């Protein structure tokens, strides 16, 4: 594989997103939301929320926002160029199809990673000034985990972009995916839990291991578990809400969570290549 075309395609994607101001807009959204989350805490407690608490509050926003942004970045990456005809010229150049897929992924992945890193990073610096004893390592783990889950959704979107013939269909597919992972899949998993285990067990947190294993099919659950395992979100949340902390089984490790997220990325990147390689342009 030649790195030059991959680099050139990735560079073009990044420059395109700088030109159309996507990078700036998303970065500002991430930074403003994070700072707002921390600052809003002062309404109730006369001081800004700590980074742990801010991360806990940010989790639900990240789970909604990051997939949307990743899907929007990736859903048209391939199908747009096929639809408007520029893919004809691109493929006629000395470049392999896998290099195009990798270039698109690295470019768009770079845009997504940059916006998350800078957006949350800037917010972290501001919160660090306002709040004492900030654990920046934990905050970096949160940022890294968010980038990983963002890349998962990006590769899924990239696959959809190779799957459909029209941009509108790919957009519909991306919207469905967002609903599926955020609404439908959690309901299915809760249904499975209620069917297999007693309600009292689930409410008391005493659920069987298979239920925990099934939960890992949802990348968002894997992401929130990864963050919770490394940042004292549970403690912060339970202290604030006076609810018992979530107990994870022993096999829930950071290594497993990172491996699952990587498997999603590699798997869908492979699927994207397979589909794109079979496609008649």
């Amino acid at each position, binding site marked *: 594989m030649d790195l030059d075309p991959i680099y*050139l395609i990735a560079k073009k994607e990044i420059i*395109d997103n700088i030109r*159309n101001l996507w990078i700036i807009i998303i970065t500002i959204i991430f930074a403003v939301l994070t700072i707002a989350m921390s600052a809003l805490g002062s309404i109730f407690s006369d001081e800004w929320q700590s980074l742990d608490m801010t991360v806990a509050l940010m989790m639900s926003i990240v789970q909604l926002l990051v997939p949307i942004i990743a899907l929007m970045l990736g859903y048209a990456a391939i199908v747009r160029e096929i639809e408007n*005809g520029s893919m*004809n*010229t691109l493929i006629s150049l*000395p470049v392999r199809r896998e290099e195009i897929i990798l270039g698109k992924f690295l470019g768009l992945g770079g845009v997504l990673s940059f916006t998350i890193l800078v957006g949350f990073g800037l917010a972290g610096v501001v919160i660090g000034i306002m709040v004492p004893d900030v654990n920046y390592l934990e905050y970096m783990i949160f940022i890294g985990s968010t980038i990983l889950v963002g890349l998962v959704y990006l590769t899924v979107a990239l696959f959809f972009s190779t799957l459909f013939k029209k941009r509108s269909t790919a957009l519909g597919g991306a919207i469905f995916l967002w609903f599926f992972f955020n609404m439908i899949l959690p309901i299915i998993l809760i249904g499975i839990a209620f069917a297999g285990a007693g309600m009292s067990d689930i409410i008391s947190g005493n659920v069987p291991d298979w239920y925990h294993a099934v939960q890992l099919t949802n990348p968002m659950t894997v992401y929130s578990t990864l963050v919770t395992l490394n940042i004292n979100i549970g403690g912060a949340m339970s202290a604030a809400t006076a609810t018992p902390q979530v107990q994870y089984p022993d096999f829930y490790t950071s290594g497993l969570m990172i491996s699952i997220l990587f498997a999603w990325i590699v798997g869908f990147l492979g699927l994207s290549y397979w589909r794109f390689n079979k496609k008649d*342009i």
Partner: protein
Amino acid sequence: MVSKTVKCPKCGEQSTIEGVVGKKTIITCPSCGTKGQFTFSTAQPMARTTDGSETIQVRNLTKQYNDVKAVNNVSFNIRKGEIFGFLGPNGAGKTTTIKSILGLIHTDTGQIKINGVDIKKDNKRAHKYIGYLPEKVSFYNNLTALQNMYFYAEMKNVPKSECKPLIVEMGLEDAVNKKVGKFSKGMQQRLGMAQALLGNPAILILDEPSGGLDPRGVALIRNKIREMKEKGSSVFVSSHILAEVQAVCDRVGIISKGTLVAEDTVEKLRGKLNLKPKLVIELEKITDDVVNLIKSIEGVEKIEVVGVMMHIVCSSTSKSKVIVEIEKSGINILNIQTMEPTLEEVFMKFTEG
């Protein structure tokens, strides 16, 4: 078009015949005159021998969409330094053939080699030889003409310094820094040609290069095609504009309903079809007697009278007889013009029905 060496069952004389795959060809032995028929096999038509000078070799190319064979067992070669015109009615399979050559679509059967490199085995290496102008030219609309060219130059590993002169050569000097999204169809076509010419490719593949161009643009593209031939490049031109093809092409291939029905020089195709030249004579006046007189001349096939103009289709040998007979009749000839059969007539003959 495929060729085959056949042996006469009566006298044993060997001869080479040409025909279309799947169609019957009537053969007459040049030695003893015995008549026979031969059907070219759809399985493996004989490939023309190659001496290494072929830049594009297409063998038994077939591509099917659902139940329709868009391209059916097509084989042809394009030689180094030649301009090859690829003609056919709408939906005949021209663009499918071009896309197959470029590896944009996956063929069902067949082999395509670019400068000896199998497109299926090493697509990337094969593309290093090619400059391509697609039928539907499209660029990155958010970039300027120069920015688009820079991207393609980098991808082709060609110096960026080539970009601006090419844009200017294609008559877009006022639009170098204009966003392509604001370009007209003709301007996009010109930029597409500039992109295809980046790096002086050994093979230039142009799919309908005159589309959307004004006459000046058409002439510019025609000159560029000739210039590339002079530099030693092979040019593959697909076009509907037969006059354009006739003006620049060394050889033509005619595709109809997915099958290559003819492949040769325009002159040889005319000969194969036995198309006769047309004599256009302007007379002082035209009478029934003179029309009947000309009709009676051996070799005269058809007469059309338009005002004082007489269009006569006849063999080359009967042209002088026609002129002599008119003079004998006492009617003054004001003007005489001989029109050779055009590519359009060749095209119509091969694609009719």
